C-alpha cells in the first residue's frame, strides 16, 4: 500500500465509523421520542433541571430586556414627575422582583430538542426509568395501605356511652 492508499483506507474507516455513530444516535432519538413524554423528562431531577434552565435562558434572552426597558422607563417617567407613583423606588432595586413576578406567572413551555440533539443528556433518565416506575408503584401501594389504616376507625362503630370506638 502506498501513502495515498493508506489515506483512502483511513478515510473510509472513519466514514464508516461516523455513519455508525449517526445511525446509533438516530436510533436513540427515535427511542426517546417514542417512549418518553415531556412529563417523564420533568419527573427526573437531572432532565428537569436542564429543561428549566433552558426555559429561563430563553426568557432572559427574548423577554427580560423588553420588560426591563419597560419597567425602567415607567419608573423614571413617574420619578421625574411630581406624582407619587413609584416614589419609593430608587435605582430600580425592585427590577429583579418585577421580572421574577412576571416569570413566575407565565405558562411553562418546554422544548425537548436539546435531548434530541444530544441524547446522551437523557442517559440517566432512561437508565433509571424502570426502577423509578417500580419505586413509584410501591410508594403508591404503601400510601394506600397507610390511608386505609388511618380510616380504620371509620369502619368501627362509635360507642357513645363509653366514648370510644368498638
Amino acid at each position: 500500500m502506498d501513502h495515498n492508499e493508506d489515506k483512502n483506507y483511513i478515510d473510509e474507516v472513519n466514514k464508516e465509523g461516523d455513519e455508525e455513530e449517526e445511525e446509533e444516535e438516530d436510533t436513540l432519538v427515535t427511542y426517546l421520542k417514542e417512549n418518553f413524554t415531556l412529563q417523564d423528562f420533568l419527573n427526573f431531577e437531572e432532565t428537569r433541571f436542564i429543561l428549566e434552565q433552558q426555559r429561563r435562558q430563553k426568557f432572559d434572552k427574548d423577554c427580560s430586556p423588553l420588560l426591563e426597558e419597560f419597567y425602567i422607563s415607567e419608573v423614571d417617567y413617574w420619578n421625574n414627575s411630581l406624582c407619587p407613583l413609584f416614589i419609593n423606588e430608587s435605582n430600580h432595586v425592585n427590577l429583579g422582583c418585577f421580572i421574577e413576578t412576571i416569570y413566575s406567572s407565565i405558562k411553562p413551555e418546554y422544548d425537548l430538542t436539546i435531548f434530541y440533539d444530544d441524547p446522551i443528556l437523557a442517559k440517566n433518565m432512561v437508565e433509571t426509568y424502570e426502577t423509578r416506575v417500580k419505586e413509584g408503584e410501591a410508594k403508591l401501594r404503601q400510601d394506600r395501605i397507610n390511608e386505609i389504616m388511618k380510616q380504620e376507625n371509620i369502619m368501627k362503630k362509635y360507642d357513645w356511652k363509653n366514648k370510644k370506638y368498638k
Partner: protein
Amino acid sequence: MEFPIRISNRIVKPKTKTYRQWWNSPIDPEDSLCGNCIATNGRFVKDFHNDISSILKKCGYQIDNEKKLKNEIVTIIYTLSNDSV
C-alpha cells in the same frame, strides 16, 4: 408575595388612604384629566398590566394565572407609591 419588594433607606410616608380609595383616586390631583376621563391609580395599574401582557404576547408567552399576576403587579405599584405627594 413570593419576591419581597425592597424599599430603600428613605423615609416612607405612611399610607393615609385605604387601598380602595387609592385605586379610585387620581394619580396627580393637579393634572388628572386624560381625554375626558380621570387618570386614576386604578386606570394606571390596568394600563401597566396591559402593557406587560402585550410584551409577553409579543415574545410568544402566555400568562398562566391572570388574576395572580394582576394582584402581584398592583402590590408592587401600591407598595412603591405614596398615596399623596
